[in-house]
């Protein structure tokens, strides 16, 4: 859907580029994630993809055509959720949504969406009186107003409680099941792990890895099995290489010992991130 090559952008009056020669592809029907620490260039990349920043270097192709060639009809197709609240504070949530809805040709019924994210009973409250999490949920509904084919979600679960975070993630997955494509950014490892078909690591405006979370784990995970067992009242551990688990020696070990726990040495995305970039996700 999107093909990006050698994309660079430097903010005016800024010496270092916020996005510095990145290449990636977003396939139709997938959830593609950007994982990176604060200031890495995630939001800037999103702004480039949604044509909010136009004077970039490099190439962005949307459905094989340069993004520059698309007029404002492009926006009928996409839904955008920003990292900050984007509602008129003195208007109610419903008035906000109705206003934005009228700007599109095709729109959806907001009632089920608002009910789903738990804002229906608060729809007549002024957006300025919403809590931070409520504002972000309202942003999410705003992004879905025009029944988009593609969603851009900048830190969609940031500042949201676990229950609502689950609901949003379910909705994002459903959006994909219905044929939608998603670009999302996050610095929360578990979000990316649970949602994304493919993830790219971004740091200082550069991409490092780009693959499915599973492949990354296979690539960087330690291929070992760790066994904890009890012997003479003492808790001991032993590691076996993954390739040995078909061997008799391993089976014999399992049979004869008093096994407490068994773990495959799966590394978290966060560990992999640190390994690849040398930088921790959180300061």
């Amino acid at each position: 859907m999107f093909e990006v090559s050698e994309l660079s952008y430097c903010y005016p009056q800024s010496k270092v580029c916020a996005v510095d020669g990145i290449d990636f592809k977003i396939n139709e029907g997938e959830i593609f994630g950007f994982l990176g620490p604060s200031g890495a260039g995630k939001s800037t990349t999103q702004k480039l993809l949604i044509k909010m920043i136009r004077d970039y270097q490099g190439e962005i192709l949307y459905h094989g055509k340069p993004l520059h060639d698309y007029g404002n009809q492009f926006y009928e197709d996409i839904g955008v959720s920003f990292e900050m609240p984007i509602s008129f504070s003195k208007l109610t949530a419903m008035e906000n949504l109705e206003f934005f809805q009228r700007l599109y040709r095709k729109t959806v019924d907001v009632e089920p969406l608002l009910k789903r994210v738990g804002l229906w009973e608060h729809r007549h409250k002024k957006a300025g009186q919403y809590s931070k999490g409520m504002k972000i949920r309202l942003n999410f509904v705003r992004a879905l107003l025009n029944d988009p084919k593609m969603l851009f979600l900048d830190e969609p679960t940031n500042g949201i409680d676990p229950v609502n975070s689950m609901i949003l993630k379910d909705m994002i997955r459903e959006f994909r099941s219905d044929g939608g494509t998603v670009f999302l950014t996050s610095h929360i490892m578990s979000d990316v792990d649970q949602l994304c078909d493919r993830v790219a690591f971004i740091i200082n405006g550069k991409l490092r890895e780009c693959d499915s979370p599973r492949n990354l784990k296979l690539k960087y995970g330690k291929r070992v099995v760790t066994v904890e067992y009890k012997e003479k009242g003492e808790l001991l551990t032993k590691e076996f290489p993954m390739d040995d688990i078909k061997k008799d020696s391993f089976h014999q070990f399992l049979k004869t010992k008093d096994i407490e726990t068994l773990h495959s040495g799966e590394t978290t995305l966060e560990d992999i991130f640190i390994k690849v970039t040398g930088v921790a996700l959180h300061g």
Partner: protein
Amino acid sequence: MARLAVLVKGEVSRLSKYGLFQATLVVTMFWLGAAWFMEEEMLERFVPLIFLLEATMMTILLVGATMFYEKKESTVNSILVSPVTMQEYIAAKVIMNIINSMISVVIISVAIYLMKGITFNYLLLVPAMIMVTIIHTLIGIKIAYMSLNFSSLLANYMVYVFVFLVPPVLAVFNVIRGVVTDFFILLPPEASNIILGAAFREAETWRLLAAWGYMLVLGVLVYRFMVKPGFDNFVMREAGV
């Protein structure tokens, strides 16, 4: 066209939701209150001035305030990831201000007639008010671009008022006299004053035509070289509070 109508409706309804429309009404009432106590001779100079201030100062202030809110609340970003174009966004601002100016025209004209029995040439007043409002909406947009936060918005506004608006106003009350005032036509508020003034008193034709021509050209230039090129940067800039 339908989208533009939605934008204008949104602008107008937000004007009262954010209390800005009420604020302009208070200012209008203040001018009318002052007019109440004026003698006829003074009033003849003062009434055109009310219209001038409404279409220049109030317009810039409204544009600045709405754009400041839209930046602060990032709603301008939200509008611009919809099919709305820059031209539509700016046109909506212009039309909103024209509507506001027309409301002022009605209120002030009716009030002045009821209070003092004074009438003037409304057929000349209305187009002049529209023209002045358009120019000052565009100037207001430029001032909003230049302002990174509310205090710089106010500062830039004050600079505009003192440099461009105060001299012609002083000339109205004969504080400034002489040939220098002939060059005031180059100040947008003075050109505004001339085309508005034609609704109240005989104007020299050449001056009136020059002022209209100047306003038209100025409008095109301000849009082409100030408003249009600065827009992307304004949208992209981090919201400054």
